[in-house]
């Protein structure tokens, strides 16, 4: 069952053709990884999936992107889309408030006011993000005092708190040490039972360890899309081979 379908999608930044005729169907409860050199459009594509590109001046998109068959650039409310499609950013971006308020921000945004309900969501999200034990005694402390790895897992918990269906991860571990990275990778594998995860990564070993499917992008074009095993053991396209074996350019 495909969660996200992208068909014949083109994206322009002003006159720059950033994504060319991308067609990509991503299955539910799987981890899809986008790989490719910097500037290949993979992050741009990721941001199109929750319409974060709307904020960018001069960004034009054509084609068809659907979530569960529903056109996300059609009549769907953008805030509802972003509730359904959560995002974790490259740099951990906790809000300058307490751990608790960080997690509760999303649910509160979507109308949950009951203290008991919020308490439950905060605990559940932190547990899901495997950081409850570390943070349960400092819920009232500022989130900015946490370590980088904790901050990033807090951001994952914050994203989970609004009960999304899809989680977009934009190089979510690129600024973290190996231990924190490992924890987040483990977390992804655990989360995919309940969520569909789409990640952009520069770390090919990470794509190998975590993802089920991998799409390789080059110069705005989707060159190859297949199971991760197939892409990394027997890539079909010469450019993919060159890139993943490090003989690119």
């Amino acid at each position, binding site marked *: 069952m495909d969660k996200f379908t992208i068909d014949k999608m083109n994206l322009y930044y002003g006159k720059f053709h950033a994504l060319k005729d991308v067609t990509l169907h991503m299955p539910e409860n799987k981890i899809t990884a986008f790989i490719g050199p910097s500037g290949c459009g993979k992050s741009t594509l990721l941001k199109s999936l929750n319409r*974060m590109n709307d904020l960018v001046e001069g960004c034009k998109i054509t084609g068809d992107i659907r979530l569960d068959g529903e056109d996300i650039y059609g009549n769907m409310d953008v*805030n509802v889309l*972003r509730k359904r499609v959560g995002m974790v950013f490259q740099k951990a971006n906790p809000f*300058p408030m307490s751990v608790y308020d960080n997690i509760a921000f999303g649910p509160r*945004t979507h109308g949950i006011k009951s203290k008991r309900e919020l308490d439950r969501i905060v605990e559940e999200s932190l547990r899901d993000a495997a950081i409850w034990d570390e943070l349960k005694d400092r819920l009232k402390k500022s989130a900015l005092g946490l370590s980088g790895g904790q901050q990033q897992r807090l951001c994952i918990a914050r994203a989970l708190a609004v009960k999304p269906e899809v989680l977009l991860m934009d190089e979510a571990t690129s600024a973290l040490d190996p231990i924190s990275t490992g924890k987040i990778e483990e977390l992804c594998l655990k989360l995919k039972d309940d969520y569909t995860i789409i990640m952009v990564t520069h770390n090919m070993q990470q794509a190998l360890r975590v993802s089920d499917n991998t799409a390789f992008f080059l110069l705005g074009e989707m060159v190859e899309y297949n199971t991760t095993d197939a892409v990394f053991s027997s890539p079909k396209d010469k450019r993919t081979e060159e890139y993943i074996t490090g003989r690119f350019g």
Partner: protein
Amino acid sequence: MADKTGSAEIAEIKPINKLTLKQRLMSYKRKPLSLVMLLLVALAALISAAALVFIIVYVLVRGIPNLTPELFSLTYNSDNVSCMPSIINTVLLTLLTILISVPFGIGSAIYLAEYAKKGSKLVKVIRTMAETLAGIPSIVYGLFGMLFFVYTLNWGYSLLAGAFTLAIMVLPTIMRTAEEALLTVPDSYREGSFGLGAGKLRTIVRIILPSAMPGILAGVILAVGRIVGETAALIYTYGSATGYTTGLLSSGRSLAVHMYVLTNEGLHTDQAWGTAVVLLVLVFGINTLSAFIAKKLGNKKG
């Protein structure tokens, strides 16, 4: 976790990474110019500090002996030039001015920083205008206030006319600092908030404004400083009535104006010095209070 070493032990440590006096002298011998530079900047710092200390001490020395109970008596008359009414007037004026200017200032800052297209013509024009207005001498505002509020709107010399004039005067300051404060809020906060499905309004009110608050407050404090110290713009708008301001359209004098008038008349120079001390304490108090508030907000953040 590193072991905690006792402070006594730390005191005994002789660090190798600190220059000894001998090493320092050696390095100056090699580069005499850097010694000259050091002496010059040290001298500059010393003179500046000395000038400030001199003024404060001078005001205190001349003023404190004149801080008599009579100076704070509740009523003003030509025999006892009490500054009590002007203290109250100053507080009222400040509050009213801030009340008028802050919503407009922050509102337009939010528009410029969050809503207007980045680098649009309008934003540039508004910014240039704000900067120009911030540099105009206050007497020009006073003149404008007199012609517009006092005569055209026929408010007379009044609290309202004074407050509106000063509000216009401090608006650019508040607006610019608030805009700067909003612009320094990292975009990652906005992304994070939008990413959770929060709308623009919620993002601004719940995430951006709290983050920018210390910066915004700094602008407001600057504005308060200007309001409290202002004379020229007030003489033509708020007037210099000696009593308490009893209503929006009632005239009065602020502490700074009071001091100006006393000095000008030349009859109550001693009381003017006393008033100067009061003004000094007031400004000091405002600064301390605002530093405290800023720290409070900062603590909540960091």
